[in-house]
């Protein structure tokens, strides 16, 4: 198992789709933490810096994690 995991962690086999979802999830958690610390809304660059991504790459990753129905959820909220 350990070997398989190590193997899967190699960039050569991890699919971008999975990585983007991971980044998006990390960003959501980091946003909550940062906003408690800062007592205001967090900027994209602040979240990106904390998780070690470029703002432009984070912006793309956030799109990858959107379920199609979220558009309507946002609107109803």
């Amino acid at each position, binding site marked *: 198992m350990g070997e398989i995991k190590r193997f899967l962690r190699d960039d050569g086999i991890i699919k971008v789709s999975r990585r983007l979802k991971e980044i998006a999830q990390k*960003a959501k958690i980091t*946003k909550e933490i940062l906003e408690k610390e800062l*007592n*205001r*809304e*967090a*900027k*994209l*660059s602040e*979240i990106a810096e904390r998780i070690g991504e470029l*703002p*432009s*790459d*984070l*912006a*793309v990753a*956030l*799109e*990858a994690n*959107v379920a199609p129905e979220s*558009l309507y959820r*946002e*609107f109803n909220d």
Partner: protein
Amino acid sequence: MRENSAKITVMSRSENESFVRAAVSAFVSQLDPTLEELADIKTAVSEAVTNSIVHGYAEKKGDIMIDIYIKDDKVKITVTDNGCGIADVKEAMQPLFTTNTDGERSGMGFTVMETFMDNISVNSIVDVGTKVTMEKTIGLRTL
């Protein structure tokens, strides 16, 4: 005094909606928005692009052009198609107005764009196409 622009052209295919959202986000990231501001912009752009695909081109295929222009803390986005156009823009922009009869569309697209952006304007000529212009200032919102 920062000023920058980009232009994106895609075919009217539903797969490209997500690409346009991602590309617009990546460009707007230069203004360092909050995630909410970014989501607002993406939602508005989605509605405009969806309209070009389902109404503008309907069964046909054509190009959709997205222009993004940023200046200082403002972003201006235009979504343009060379589709069927809108005969009565004022009527089309009314909440709940839709020409879609199979009940799949809510008629709230333009209302969503107006809600999530600071202002929108629509120019359209029948059989020529439609251009939706939307603007938003980043960093306006306070807690």
